[in-house]
């Protein structure tokens, strides 16, 4: 079985996003970019599945500009076997990403697709579900545990009131939650090997997928800033302020 993981190049987790002066988006020139943290978890899970003998090959797919190759190389350095880049300079929406992933799924026929539950840039939380709907494969989102049970999977999911578990037939689409695993660091020998692993680039135009949608960004603004309040001297003053000034207790 092949496992397909989708990895997205995003503004690094530790870098504060700054809105561009012309309000057209976020400043991404000359800032540190990294793999979306949820996608690192996806790669890790795929590798564990392979290491447990439940898969033969892990393929990392990214969709984005040519620099997304670095993100794929990161996945290859962690241990993925090969990479596919669908190259585009456009910022694509989850609907289009899901269609492009479907294109790869049709080509590669994996038994499992694992994607992050959301990307920390647009925070959409849509791609996995959309891919599942488009392929007709079972969907297991927000996974915090994945277990193989014959040709099905038992997936523990993080829901608002706790955890629930579902059984899904394969092939399936899984989206990862934070506590699914702790991604490994790439080993130096694997970083070196990653360079020689195959990485195929497909221009987005060759997929035949339309990349425009009816949804457009009008503008991007800074959020309203909350002002710092007062520092109180002790607990009794805090209780007093909450009771008599803010009147919230």
């Amino acid at each position, binding site marked *: 079985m092949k496992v397909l993981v989708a990895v997205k190049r995003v503004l690094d987790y530790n870098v504060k996003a700054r809105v561009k002066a012309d309000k057209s988006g976020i400043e991404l020139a000359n800032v540190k970019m990294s793999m979306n943290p949820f996608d690192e978890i996806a790669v890790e899970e795929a590798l564990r599945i392979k290491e447990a003998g439940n898969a033969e090959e892990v393929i990392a797919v990214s969709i984005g500009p040519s620099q997304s190759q670095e993100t794929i190389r990161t996945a290859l350095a962690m241990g993925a076997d090969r990479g596919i880049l669908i190259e585009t300079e456009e910022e694509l929406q989850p609907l289009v990403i899901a269609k492009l992933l479907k294109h790869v799924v049709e080509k590669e026929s994996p038994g499992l697709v694992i994607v992050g539950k959301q990307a920390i840039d647009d925070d959409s*939380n849509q791609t996995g579900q959309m891919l599942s709907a488009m392929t007709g494969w079972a969907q*297991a989102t927000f996974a915090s545990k994945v277990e193989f049970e014959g040709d099905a999977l038992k997936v523990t999911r993080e829901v*608002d009131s706790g955890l629930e578990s579902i059984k899904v037939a394969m092939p399936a689409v899984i989206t990862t939650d934070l506590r699914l695993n702790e991604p490994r660091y790439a080993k130096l020998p694997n970083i070196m090997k990653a360079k020689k692993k195959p990485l195929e680039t497909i221009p987005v135009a060759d997929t035949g997928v339309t990349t425009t949608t*009816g*949804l457009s960004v009008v503008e991007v603004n800074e*959020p309203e800033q909350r002002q710092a309040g007062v520092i109180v001297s002790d*607990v009794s003053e805090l209780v007093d302020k*909450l009771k008599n000034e803010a009147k919230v207790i």
Partner: protein
Amino acid sequence: MSTLILAEHEGGALRPATLNVVAAATQIGNDVTLLVAGSGSDAVAQAASSLAGVTKVLHADDAAYENELAENLADLVMTIANDYEHILFAATASGKNVMPRVAAMLDVPGISDITEVQSADTFVRPIYAGNAMATVKSSDARKVITVRTTSFEAGAETGGSASVETLAATAASEKVSFIGQELSQSDRPELTSARVVVSGGRGMQDGENFKMLDEIAEKLNAAVGASRAAVDAGFVPNEYQVGQTGKVVAPDLYIAVGISGAIQHLAGMKDSKVIAAINKDEEAPIFQVADYGLVADLFDALPELSKGLDG
């Protein structure tokens, strides 16, 4: 044209989140239809029909809908989706699970987590953990949306008198089945709808110390939350997590204890009406958003606070 909302419910009652979604739908302006899908859910359908602003309730009752499986709910929505211009879900774990499927099947982009309705086709949604707000406009015939519940004041539970119509159930998916759940047991209000939230961070040092927060929560009828650091450290289960990748809350009072205030945490609570923070590090970023800050060791401050709330 009108707006369809997928109602959420559990234990025979609507989840509060649905009231917030109705409020968002009211702002969009069209007629509002509530879809209640469940198993043995007549009471929920009845309750739904009395919500202010709801003009019609569609009720589909079948075992397929018992456990909110996304495949089954999306299939059901698709049987009527073409009758609606807007299809709304709450931005809950359940709503987020279903919405993108519906959008994909309609071949339109999903619009996640809206915090503002500017017009029937223009919405505001947070991106980059709320570090930026994107205004997006849809030219599609159908707009499929999740609504950030904390951004819309809940609509009234009564005052409406919608008709209840039965909707034929769809077949259950054979690819997925529900096994079970481990829900956290708590007598406290639910985190996202509590009026007061008391949250602990890494500064709590271990799970045992969260009992000090429980004690205070008890006295304030508050829910207990946590930062990602506290959840990752295993102090409390994941459903306590407030933040970019956890729950978004906006209570009247949010008390942050031993939480430094990483941007990802602020993303989940900065819309709270009043924020109080207790931290021993006076440079902690949480103080930059707190209305009331107390620089103190939480192990001294919490017992005092607990006592102070008695008096």
